[in-house]
């Protein structure tokens, strides 16, 4: 088995700063499926098209939790348009690169985000 998490990944996993819910969130998105091992829910507070606050709830592995936390940090302060441009690769990079078999965990983050922003638009 060949899997190596970066220190950044482990640190984020062990002390996630953004875990939690936002009551009355402006947008909520979800991705994943428990039988595949990961479910991610993202909560956003948006004012004037800018993400003021981002929080997550995640059922998943080390990479999933670290990716969720990284995503939330990246989101705060971004406009909705900027946020839409975040890719799995960006998240993985910020984490000091996820192991290839775990790359999909960062993609999951962008999927939950997309779901949230799509819901937001609809409002």
């Amino acid at each position, binding site marked *: *088995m*060949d*899997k190596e998490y970066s220190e950044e990944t*482990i640190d984020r*996993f*062990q002390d*996630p700063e953004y*875990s939690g819910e936002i009551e009355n969130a402006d947008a909520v998105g*979800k991705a994943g499926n*428990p*039988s*595949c*091992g*990961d*479910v*991610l*829910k993202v909560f956003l507070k948006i004012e004037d098209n800018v993400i003021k606050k981002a929080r997550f*709830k*995640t*059922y*998943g*592995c*080390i*990479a*999933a*939790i670290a990716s969720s936390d990284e995503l939330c940090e990246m989101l705060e302060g971004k406009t909705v348009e900027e946020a839409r441009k975040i890719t799995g690769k960006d998240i993985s990079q910020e984490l000091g690169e996820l192991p290839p*078999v*775990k790359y999909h965990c960062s993609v999951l983050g962008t999927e939950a985000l997309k779901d949230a922003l799509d819901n937001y638009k609809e409002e």
Partner: protein
Amino acid sequence: MSELEVYLDNGSTTKTDSEAFEKMKPYFTEKYGNPASLHKEGKEAKKAINKSKRIIADTLNADKKEIIFTSGGTESDNLALKGIAFENKEKGKHIITTKIEHDAVLKSAKWLEEQGFKITYLDVDEEGFVDQEQLKREITDETILVSIIHGNNEIGTIQSLKELSEITHEHSKNAYFHTDACQSYTKTNLDVKEQNLDLVSINSHKIHGPKGVGALYIKKGTEIHPWQHGGGHEKGMRSGTLNTHGVVGFAEAAKNNYENKEKNIEKMTSLRDKLIEEILKIEKTKLNGPKGSKRLPNNINICFNNIEGEALSGYLNRKGIYASTGSACSSLDLEPSHVLTAIGLTKQEANSCLRITLSKYNTKEEINYVLKELPDVVKRLRDMSPL
């Protein structure tokens, strides 16, 4: 960082006994000869190999000549399956094994399937016991090998080898009976005569011996097709310069652990049962595998609803508690454990299990520490979960 470091992954590998290590020492820089050589240096090594064989044979109630050394449990399993299959393919091409084997057996069986053998994978019940009726139904004179794991590495289930080998020998005139005893060796009763076994795989690093060495018991008269070719060591059955220091360390560990078997089993069983009892008090938890004497004395495997196993062991790791998980996320192929799904767990359940495997070195204090920390970690992860 953490108060204590508690190693609870002894099903994966163990600390080498210091007695075993001491015995190995002279074979690196003093008695370093090749046991295959005729000169004095070689003879000394040869003597050590022979003595080690006798020790290992004794722990299995076997004869010295029935033991060959390998590089580990994986090689022993590979040799048993492929060696018996290739030796007996004229008699039949059917092999029976189970759905809860270690990958060393399972992937060998799959490979043999690609080579034209037919493999039957026996079902197990929800505690992991092999379906004996199915074995009776599937076995014929075409069957050349039945391979069943003794103590399961994930859920601790100990199979009734004697009954299974009896069924095998009664219902097929051509079938040999192999058991992968890497987890059970020196941790429960294993006796090649009483249990009527033809081949047994064991290894060193699971019983406080060094890594890189194992053995295969091959009952006298059983022909096996060599799988590693070369200088004709081990009577041609397994070529390759013998790992003298490894073998010596393995034998010393085997002796140690065999002689103190009852005491060790008692100690581990009591810690195991305390852990199981207390962990099951945490809500939404479930034990995998049986309770009592049909479970490996050092194995605990528990599902925690709504928690992913890798994350759980990751947080425990931070507390200095080293355990493992059958979660898909921790495996290379991203599939949850085939053993957990074989006993009927859903994928989600299988992804939320923690395996704790004790050794004789674990203490009550350590277990108390685990029991103090575990509920918090579980709560924290459940709070984080959207489910």
